[in-house]
């Protein structure tokens, strides 16, 4: 193909060199280090009971948090796109706070709030719920971190839904709930699933906000990224690389899942392609 505009070798060359130095070589080092020693040792590290317990916690808590975000993210996206009330624009801007607020700040703020002597924690303690330094605290932090994903993927879809379709449903005698269940929800479902998956993917790898609120108790509140840090501090580079590789593969799986959802949705809308 003939290229009219200038700058192709320069911009592509610069991008490729930059990404090779910053991404490809370091990630090759990760794979090289993971497989540098005996494979048996690598397998023993990534399947040791403490590490497996951390996978269960990281993935379980991330799943719980992303489902909570799916529910409240949907409600929030709905309220922000459909209703008009004072302060709506400010709330809309604040949705991105978890993107902008450093995770360490979020971590100590949520800990202060949900610790047994905190504003909310004290109320929860009265009814016998321990939030901070417990698994519940981890889920709360992950809900905070993942919240914007669901809202921001749903908002454009809810805006783009044509009003005529909803009017038609109403004219055909559907109640509002039926219209929601049979017309609106199916149209928003792919975006909702994408948002939940993005929120899940982010939550699995989250570190900064959790180290403060979790208490880091082995087998109980120790997340996988924290174990990588512990391995590095013990100079067990191969162990750290092995666990890192497992997490990286899991993230790749989540990414593939998101792409599948989007492909499925594209095919659903344009069946001819």
């Amino acid at each position: 193909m003939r290229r009219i505009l200038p700058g192709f070798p320069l911009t592509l060359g610069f991008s490729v060199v930059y990404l090779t130095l910053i991404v490809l070589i370091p990630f090759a080092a990760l794979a090289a280090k993971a497989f540098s020693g005996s494979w048996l040792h690598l397998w023993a590290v990534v399947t040791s009971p403490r590490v497996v317990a951390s996978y269960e916690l990281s993935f379980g808590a991330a799943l719980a948090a992303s489902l909570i975000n799916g529910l409240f993210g949907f409600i929030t996206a709905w309220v922000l796109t459909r209703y008009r009330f004072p302060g709506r624009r400010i709330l809309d801007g604040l949705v991105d706070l978890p993107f902008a607020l450093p995770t360490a700040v979020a971590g100590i703020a949520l800990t202060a709030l949900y610790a047994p002597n905190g504003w909310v924690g004290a109320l929860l303690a009265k009814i016998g719920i321990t939030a901070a330094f417990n698994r519940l605290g981890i889920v709360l932090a992950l809900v905070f971190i993942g919240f914007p994903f669901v809202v921001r993927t749903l908002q454009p879809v809810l805006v783009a839904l044509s009003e005529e379709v909803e009017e038609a449903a109403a004219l055909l005698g559907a109640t509002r709930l039926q219209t929601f269940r049979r017309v609106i929800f199916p149209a928003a479902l792919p975006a909702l699933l994408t948002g939940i998956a993005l929120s899940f993917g982010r939550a699995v790898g989250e570190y900064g906000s959790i180290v403060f609120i979790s208490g880091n108790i082995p087998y109980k509140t120790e997340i996988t990224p924290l174990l990588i840090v512990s391995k590095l501090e013990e100079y067990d580079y191969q162990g750290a690389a092995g666990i890192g590789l497992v997490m990286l593969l899991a993230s790749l799986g989540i990414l593939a899942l998101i792409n599948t959802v989007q492909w499925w949705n594209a095919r659903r809308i344009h069946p001819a392609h």
Partner: protein
Amino acid sequence: MAGAIQDLTTVRQSTRPRRATEEGPLTRWTLTLLSAGFFTAFLLLPLGAVFAEGLRRGAGLYFRTFTDPATLDAIKLTLFTASIAVPANTLFGVAAAWAITRFEFRGKHFLSTLIDLPLWVSPVIAGLVYVLLFGSQGVLGPWLKAHHWRIIYATPGIVIATVFVTFPFVARGLIPLMQAQGSAEEEAALTLGARGWQVFLRVTLPKIKWGLLYGIILANARAMGEFGAVSVVSGHIRGLTNTVPLQIEILYNEYAFSAAFALASLLSLLALVTLGVKSYVEWRARQQLEQSQS
């Protein structure tokens, strides 16, 4: 007949029955309150807690936090790190967006997937890969040691880790914008005799400036606030390899809560300013896009 219709419309206006595409007031109120409750518990209260805890022991102690030498060193290192990472990633973002949106080539899809990588990889893994490459037992460790170069547990490592976690933002901000704008104006400039750099500086740059600014703001917020990746490569050497988020962790773990939250309030202010500027820039970028499409 006409009178009857007239009557109907007046009745309609006075009692305002809800439209068929709206929910009843009960549903509206329940949903709005649920959402507001969620906002309060998860977004507003934590933000409030930062400032309340920072000011709990009085304004004197609050401001004294910012005169502590270790804290000042942390602020300096954070500013230094951002001053390298953000311009470097701006350059990369513009180059990558130009290549991806203006040309067709093999591996384009792979390149744009690679640009998203830091957004879905754990920050701990981002730090880990550099320790495995440059650390004392890393792939290049012995060679670096022979030349007396330190990257891990030193400033270069912090800068590289920050560059990694922030490189998608400018490219991500520009690619959809430049794709939508197309390159007809650039081609027109070329036929009118403009040279490559002139086309970019006088035609493209004015068209993309708000999208560019948007990416730079997000990259900067992340660069100044990154914790996980920087924590792994820093070694936590006080006054030498501590950025502001790491200094917050140290103060917090030493039970210097007021100082930790005072410093955290500085980053929270940065986050709020970022959100404000972001909303404005987003609005301008949308205007620019609509202008170019009309």
